[in-house]
């Protein structure tokens, strides 16, 4: 295992627990997504894994080294923090160049690698412009490019696509998949279900500082008892229990296609559609409490 989080817990100086019991493993060459609502403990967990924070309890192991030996671990990791603000005077090229110098690359390698990642992250055309002249999304991509270009075998990205437009998100996602394919261990946090579903080899759901469940997207979807989701618009007659009530739209889960058809026959509404359950539905059941009727 490339990364191991074992019973990780962090109590801050003000007495608040940022994480209470986080457990998961991450493999080399795979993207592990830490998924959870705001305040779930994702950033605290990344903080402990990247030696920014000292765990109050538990153990974090990176490539066989415990974070109790932070200097060794720091040789092996790179971090793109949440809401990082790169210096407004740095151009994309300078930012990557400087970061690669820090990571010990030789001068002749730096230019080549910088060019590769500037192109990958769609920053080539604006490579020499200072960040102050770039959009928020471009600034974010500078930080992502710095991390991806590094030679660290384990990469941590805390909500790397927040604030990016659709196109830019796909650019980042594609680059992340390519790095995983190259054998890097990638740990990424998000509360975006679509991002997790598209990117993740493994999803770790965290809520209230505790690991709720982990597994591949398919494994997590199979953990809920439903296969289908019926979305009803402006129901005139609805003689079944509603799982999620969104006002003029209701969501009803069905255990099989046949059950979905049976339910649909009973309903009278402006429109009815049936979809396969997604990671979001699994999340709502396991983290959001839908299964317990707390919608």
């Amino acid at each position, binding site marked *: 295992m490339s990364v191991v989080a074992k019973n990780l817990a962090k109590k801050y100086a003000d007495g608040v627990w940022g994480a209470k019991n986080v457990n998961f493993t991450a493999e080399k060459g795979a993207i592990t997504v830490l998924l959870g609502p705001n305040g779930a403990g994702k950033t605290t967990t990344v903080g402990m894994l990247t030696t*920014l924070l000292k765990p109050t309890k538990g153990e974090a192991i990176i490539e066989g080294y415990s974070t109790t030996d932070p*200097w060794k671990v*720091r040789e092996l990791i790179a971090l793109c923090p949440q809401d990082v603000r790169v210096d407004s005077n740095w151009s994309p090229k300078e930012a990557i160049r400087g*970061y690669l110098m*820090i990571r010990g690359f030789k001068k002749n390698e730096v230019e080549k690698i910088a060019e590769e990642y500037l192109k990958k992250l769609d920053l080539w055309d604006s490579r020499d412009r200072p960040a102050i002249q770039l959009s928020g999304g471009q600034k974010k991509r500078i930080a992502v490019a710095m991390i991806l270009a590094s030679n660290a075998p384990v990469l941590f990205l805390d909500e790397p696509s927040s604030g990016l437009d659709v196109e830019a998100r796909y650019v980042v996602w594609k680059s992340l998949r390519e790095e995983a394919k190259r054998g890097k261990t990638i740990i990424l946090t998000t509360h975006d279900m679509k991002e997790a579903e598209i990117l993740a080899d493994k999803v770790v759901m965290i809520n209230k500082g505790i690991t709720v469940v982990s597994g591949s997207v398919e494994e997590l979807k199979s953990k809920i008892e439903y296969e289908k989701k019926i979305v009803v618009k402006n129901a005139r007659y609805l003689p079944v229990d509603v799982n999620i009530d969104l006002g003029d739209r209701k969501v009803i889960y069905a255990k099989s296609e046949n059950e979905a058809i049976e339910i649909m026959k009973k309903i009278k509404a402006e429109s009815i559609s049936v979809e396969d359950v997604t990671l979001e539905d699994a999340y709502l059941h396991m983290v959001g409490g839908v299964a317990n009727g707390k919608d």
Partner: protein
Amino acid sequence: MGKISGVAYLASRWIRRQPIWLVQDLFIVIGFAIIMFVWGGLQGLKNVLVAWFISGAWGMGVNLVAQFIGWDKQGKVMDMFIASPVRPFHYVFGYFLSSLIFPVVDLAYMLVLIIYLNAWTIVLASLVAFLPLLLVSTLIGLAIVMRIKKPTNISAITNPLQMLLIIIPPVFYPASVIPETARYLVLLIPTAAGAEMARQLSGLSTWHNIWYPAAVLIAWVVIGIASSAKTVKWGME
């Protein structure tokens, strides 16, 4: 070395983009030299050399190195550095190197004056005070900026702190003009102690008590280490 030069490279980008700050320094050097010459003749010019080293050390620590590290912390760029092979020494030394351009350029501006006055003793004496004062300034600056929560407060605090300790205490004027009893009190200020030490070492001061400013500077180094040790952390918080 790559780590230090990488940090220095990134930290020096702002000077590359805003070189006008170096031109501003030229105006200040020339301006103060004229003022000091008009009021104090050649002795005034010699004193301005001491003052430039002292104000350079104080400004570089509190207003450049500490201020920029404070901004790095607020912008979470410091977290990127912590989660990397960079060690605190590489990081702070990288910032020192990138900021060194200011005293070096100032020295270049002053070179004409130094050669004209044959003031190499003053330069050497000032350098003796420059180094501990730079350390004090950086440590105190870091202790302050690491406590600041709002990014906009960083320069709002470090800029006045820089000016306050350069303009009011005896840096641009000799401490010997202050009555002896009050002088001991005034020389507790690190910039005043640094300036007095440099003046005494170069023979510019009429007062002969080198141990007092030297002891004050050493005490400030200890205070700086103690106060920054509490707030300056490199991860594992």
